[in-house]
């Protein structure tokens, strides 16, 4: 296989993480499966992860995309902790940080300011998200 081929076929790795006490993982499962079918490698964290577990997974798995699913409303507490952890391990700059769930507009502003790249709320389509990842996955 030639070098060019290898580069265009680079497999995108995504972490789908459920963080905090929120136990609603149906959405995360559906997204994990859709991303898999789009040809991505998906690492699913399982439920009830602490922010430092999400950081551990994002660093060790060297994912291109960190997808954080929060439906509990605790995003203002949990997301910054994850972002800080990623920075601590030098794993923030070349990673796409996505948040999925119910995030009020005011909070969205703030999360973006902290370094979240995109937020997908209710009604966002799979295609939208997959296209976004294809277009914005970091060059490495």
């Amino acid at each position, binding site marked *: 296989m030639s070098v060019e081929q290898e580069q265009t076929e680079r497999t995108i790795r995504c972490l789908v993480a459920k963080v905090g006490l929120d136990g609603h993982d149906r959405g995360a499962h559906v997204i994990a*499966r859709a991303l*898999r079918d789009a040809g991505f490698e998906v*690492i699913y*964290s399982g439920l009830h992860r602490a922010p430092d*577990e999400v950081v551990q997974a994002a660093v060790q*798995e*060297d994912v291109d995309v960190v997808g954080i699913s929060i439906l509990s409303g605790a995003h203002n507490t949990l997301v910054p902790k994850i972002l800080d952890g990623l920075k601590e391990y030098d794993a923030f700059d070349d990673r796409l940080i996505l948040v999925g769930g119910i995030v009020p507009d005011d909070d969205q502003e703030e999360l973006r300011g902290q370094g979240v790249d995109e937020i997908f709320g209710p009604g966002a389509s799979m295609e939208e998200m997959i296209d976004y990842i294809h277009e914005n996955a970091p060059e490495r």
Partner: protein
Amino acid sequence: MSDLVADLLAGKHSALARVITQIENRSPGYREIISDLHQHTGTADVIGVTGSPGAGKSTLVDKVAATYREQGQTVGVIAIDPSSPFSGGAVLGDRIRMASNAGDMDMFFRSMSARGSLGGLSTATTDAVTALDAFGKDKIIVETVGAGQNEVDIVRTADTVAVLVPPGSGDDVQMLKAGILEIGDVFVVNKADLDGADRTVQQLREMLQGRSGRPDSGHHGPTELAPEHGDASDDDLDEEEDESETWNPPIVETVANRGDGVEDFLDALANHGEYLDRTGRREGQARERFAAEIRTLLREDANELLVDELDRRGGIEHYVDAVIERDTDPYTVVDEVLAPLRACLDERRDES
């Protein structure tokens, strides 16, 4: 030496993760990385864990890793999952079971997918083990579903191979005969609290007795790495060292999700490690492993060279057409493509 290698050797987690990514992607330059790392390896114990889906491999690995961590040892785990042959995508879920080591950075867990198209999963696994070893991990665990030749090749990167068998799987035990039974150094009947565990242990014991007639009880039997090009191999030298002592694989019963039997399992692994050292087989295995690695790389690189040459000659299809028309045959085609290579080698040999 690249910055990445320097960062890895300095103990930076993100550098280790990135090196494994480059290994997986076969990114340009990954070979130089492995070459640089090789001299820093050789200190880790490598343990392979295999078994049928749902046998409890990830759960057991989690508990084993946690116990090693309690002893103050650093651990690296590589968990290999199948990928879809259609989309190439995969959901790698082994991480879910790593609950006992949550947030512990010195427990490095990496999921790898068996990317069909790139092939050479065993090469990628070997290289990832090299990276973890160079990073300074004391224990490296390679976990994979034991289903076929690919997996057998993967666990061969390990010094000690553990095979997990769930109870009540009479037919599964039968299936094990085809290759998996031979590679196990330690057998684990997990979920030993379930009905049928005793029977499974019994069946395993009978089957393991059946294999005692083999010339070498190690999983690196002399036949499986037989040289393909008739080159003299020094594998045989190692056979003489301690012919009298053979390894009888123990059968350990565990209930991994409760942590029962984990200590016994670790004792069995340690015993096998001592046996390898005592008999000099550890060195023998390492020799065989490197020999196999060299052969694999030679095969892959030579193959790549020949694919280019085929393309230059107009692609394989045009040869296939000729073979279908009965104008020529596969052997003649191969001779034709290889002829310049042979001539070139002959020439070089004369020169030297």
